[in-house]
């Protein structure tokens, strides 16, 4: 549900950047979305098309780069990859994990004209 708000946040950034960096159209938007962020990529794609209608990014292509969830396991002292927040360490099963990547929702790059 909050993917619509996120798309409005994206549009705000695009409008602000259009002024600062002197462009009038956005053709492609690259987002970096962590697998542990609370974002559903499909809902984001749907919201993106709706929110960008009538804006400088109407019909722009949305490219989503998914980033793996990573954590430090305190039990086995190793950097590990996890699919979900509730996962245990794939090596030792412990839940004492410090997540250190995969929570981001970032606009990375734009193709503009």
């Amino acid at each position, binding site marked *: 549900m909050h993917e619509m*708000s996120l798309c409005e946040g994206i549009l705000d950034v695009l409008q602000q950047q259009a002024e600062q960096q002197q462009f*009038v159209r956005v053709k492609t938007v690259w987002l970096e979305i962590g697998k542990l962020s609370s974002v559903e990529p499909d809902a984001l794609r749907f919201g993106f098309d709706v929110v960008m209608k009538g804006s400088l990014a109407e019909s722009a292509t949305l490219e989503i780069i998914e980033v793996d969830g990573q954590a430090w396991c305190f039990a086995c002292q190793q950097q590990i990859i996890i699919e979900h927040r509730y996962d245990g360490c794939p090596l030792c099963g412990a839940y004492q994990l410090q997540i250190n990547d995969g929570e981001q929702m970032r606009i990375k*790059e734009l193709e503009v*004209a």
Partner: protein
Amino acid sequence: MCIDCGCNAGDAKIVGHSHDHDHDHAHSHDHEHHHENRLSPAHAHAPTINPARMVKIEQDILGKNNQYAQVNREYFRQHKIFTLNLVSSPGSGKTSLLTKTIELLKAELSISVIEGDQQTSNDAERIRATGVKAVQINTGKGCHLDAHGIGHAIETLAPEDNSLLFIENVGNLVCPSAFDLGEAHKVVILSVTEGEDKPLKYPDMFAAADIMLLNKIDLLPHVDFDVTQCIEYARRVNPRIKVLQVSARTGEGLALWLQWLKASHSVALIG
């Protein structure tokens, strides 16, 4: 259109504001004012048709919300207002727990409340019946409160210095987890009439919260709810989460909750 920052508040509206205030506190927003005509080709600075090019951005999508949240947080810090963001699914007993907490604390502390719901002012009215100030934000179609709306609600509510401010978020265990409002802590409320595996089903919220209040424990004899298992699930997604077991109806466990509130409020006064 809001007067102070010229924003278009969209579907959200703040209810409980029937007269004009003089707002003399410095709650400033950094707004960008967009002039659409500058975006049209006729007014663009480039003399020829722009070729396609790449622009590096590297900005957080929630950057704007986070900026507003920082403004709110700074306001709370300056005025020594201890702010909690209460989150839960609908029907967890959030409002009952809040009214009970207010009844027990209002003699000692100045308290005010921002209520968030999609529609109706029912909850703000329940809060006002306890004798404390409350404003209602109706989010319309929105599923969460955002930091910008909270900034405006603070202007309307004008919480006292050195006070306790509760923000009761929209009943939803998903979306409010992503939106920082400037609060000191998110407090997640889960009732024993729900499933004990909710921390696993909605891990983002339990990871974002610092405290879990397990409510309606007076009903434990009548439901199949495994408290130990629930706490274990919550700690899986958030090893640091504090857990308090309470009943808003019987008052069981509330002494510890009040003790935590008063202690945390005292720490906030130090600044």
